């Protein structure tokens, strides 16, 4: 593939790849993903998007270091039985961080179950985020506090919610932009199609952000689609698509930032596909050796998002020994707080099971709540009396 054909202006910057004149062609992604810093930490000659300034990169780099630490700490806590499960974004931290930091306070983020680091980067308390995976309740944070939707477990359904939030904001004339995340597998779902189509038809400010990490649990991308790229799907909805190196923090900030700006300026929705790789298994319950080789994974090690950005920032003397120590201390502190929080038993309250099904409990739920309350009271009485709660004949 010739680089000459893909180096024009990026499609999210209002230009057409290769300078092609047609409006339709302007919606197509470039042949090669946008890359501003290569895997060796060197700036590229890619001029489609401006390289973010050093301060911005340094700030985001700190979040990468923290994000990696959160992933690794959470994995350890699963092994210790403190979390039920953790879908790690190890290797995808640049996508996670960029998705959060390109948004302003008035914007919304719609994450999936793998996007814990993005949610924490947006400002949500890590312990509240991990409530879901710890098993205390199906969500642990107030979505309105940081404008972060609950993490979606069904695939692509949240993309439609993102469209609705953006649509409501548009009707009220608010400047809100919504960034909605999904993976490569989710692009096969019907709701992915409906969300992009609705967003385009209603011209609402949504940035659809696909982390293409090449696997949907065990199924590789080639079993999901034979499209030239996932970003190519955008033209089918009449919106621009762009491809970006998903392990290049600088490129992600530039491309997602342009997409957000475009949406906020009334340019409508767009689709960004980040090429990255799931370095670990789907979750701790998965065995990745059954469907991919160690060599496959090994090929992605040198493309690590943290190593290259560290090299880049050290080369420019933006990152110093002292700065690195400070970042490591910050990451240690967050990991320690997570450990401490998850090693503290939380009293789940069974009475809450009935509290939020309806705004006002139905008579049936009042009866069921009373039933459970009585059972628990009997158990408590039995415990106080030192018996197992059973009475004659073995019935409790």
């Amino acid at each position, binding site marked *: 593939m010739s680089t000459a054909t893909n180096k024009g202006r990026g499609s999210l910057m209002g230009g057409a790849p290769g300078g092609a004149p047609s409006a339709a062609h302007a919606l197509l992604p470039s042949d090669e993903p946008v890359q501003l810093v290569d895997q060796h930490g060197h700036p590229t000659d890619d001029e489609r998007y401006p390289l973010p300034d050093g301060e911005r990169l340094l700030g985001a780099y700190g979040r990468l270091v923290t994000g990696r630490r959160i992933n690794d700490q959470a994995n350890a806590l699963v092994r210790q039985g403190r979390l039920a499960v953790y879908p790690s974004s190890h290797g995808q931290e640049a996508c996670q961080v960029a998705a959060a930091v390109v948004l302003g306070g008035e914007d919304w983020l719609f994450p999936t179950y793998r996007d814990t680091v993005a949610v924490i980067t947006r400002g949500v308390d890590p312990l509240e985020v991990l409530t879901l995976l710890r098993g205390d309740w199906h969500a642990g944070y107030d979505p309105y506090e940081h404008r972060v939707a609950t993490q979606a477990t069904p695939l692509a359904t949240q993309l439609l919610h993102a*469209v*609705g*939030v953006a649509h409501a904001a548009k009707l009220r004339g608010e400047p809100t932009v919504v960034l909605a995340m999904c993976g490569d597998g989710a692009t096969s779902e019907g*709701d992915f199609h409906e969300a992009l189509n609705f967003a385009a038809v209603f011209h609402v400010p949504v940035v659809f952000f696909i982390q293409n990490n090449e696997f949907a649990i065990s199924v590789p991308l080639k079993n999901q689609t034979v499209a030239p790229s996932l970003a190519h799907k955008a033209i089918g909805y009449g919106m621009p698509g762009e491809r970006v190196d998903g392990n290049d923090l600088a490129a992600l900030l530039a491309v997602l930032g342009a997409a957000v700006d475009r949406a906020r300026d009334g340019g409508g929705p767009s689709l960004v596909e980040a090429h990255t790789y799931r370095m670990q298994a789907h979750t701790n319950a998965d065995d990745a050796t059954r469907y991919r080789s160690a060599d496959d994974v090994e090929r992605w090690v040198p493309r690590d998002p943290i190593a290259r950005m560290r090299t880049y920032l050290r080369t420019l003397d933006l990152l110093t020994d002292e700065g690195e120590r400070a970042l490591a201390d910050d990451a240690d502190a967050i990991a320690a707080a997570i450990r401490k929080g998850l090693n503290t038993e939380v009293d789940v309250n069974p009475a809450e099971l009935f*509290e939020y099904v309806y705004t006002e409990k*139905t008579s049936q739920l009042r009866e069921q709540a009373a039933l459970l309350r009585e059972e628990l009271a009997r158990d408590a009485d039995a415990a106080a009396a030192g018996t197992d709660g059973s009475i004659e004949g073995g019935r409790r």
Partner: protein
Amino acid sequence: MTQTTVGAPAPGTAGTSDTGAVPAPRATTFAKALNAALADAMEADSAVLMFGEDVGPLGGVFRITDGLTARFGEERCFDTPLAEAGIMGMAVGMAMNGMKPVVEMQFDAFAYPAFEQVVSHVAKMPNRTKGKVRLPIVIRIPYAGGIGGVEHHCDSSEAYYAHTPGLTVLAPATVRDAYFMLREAIASPDPVVFLEPKKLYWSKEEVDLAELRRTFDGGQAPRRIGRAVVARPGTDATLISYGPSVPTALAAAAAAAEEGRSIEVIDLRSIVPFDDETVCASVRRTGRAVVVAEAPGFASVASEIVARVQERCFHSLAAPVLRVTGFDIPYPSPKLEHFYLPSVDRILDAVDALQWEDRP
């Protein structure tokens, strides 16, 4: 309906509601009452939006949204791309962000593509977020049979929704209830599946829509969510019904009266929440009950009602509680549907089977 408003209509203005004069009650269809409820709700609250398929300039295939786009603009009543999951999912996001969406699923059996959004998100999001996120969404569904509809146009799908905790499920049977229940559904902070019996769209009652509006806006309309009503009092047996089966049950009660039996008819109105109190009070009085519903009987709302009644009223019952429901078959084609639908005769047969000879 008695006209209770002050002042008499000026000569020549009776029946015009926007001149300031008070119109007389007039024959009003169920469809028109729903249309008025939507318009009044949109007038009262700018957060109320109406969208779906063909609900814009066309006014919906049943004309329930007639005139709303012209009156409120295409930002508040609009057509969407033809995709039910999309409609439902977008409604979730809009409700998260301050709106009160009313969506129309064009027909009962066309609502199934939206099912995942309804079950996994509409019903669960408030619970997941411990009430932080409320979803005041109304899902309007033209519902059930009796109109000679072709395949996929006549399903009784209430059990799917009633089985899903978090959803309120309503089915009005009268013109007044159509108005008040839709207003109440739109005002509810919880998501509501609003089942509109298609065969009742053209049924009429003498009502004054302006008075209904004043009653509701003045907070004078009694609550209907979770409240069943005695549609016809009686002493010998109770017919428990909802939505499209209520008129059939009433006709059966009228026929039974000619045979000397006094049959009470309960119109549930609200399937979820279910009004155990009103239903059980009636059955305890009469000692006999038949549940009438169009949906297939197996694992149905009718089955649930039978179970609840026998759990609560066992010592008041003189006979097992029976069901008259649709057969356990896919909804039949137009020429066969009358064999399927609960009929007056089938209800009377069930009433006859309530072991009258064993009466002490």
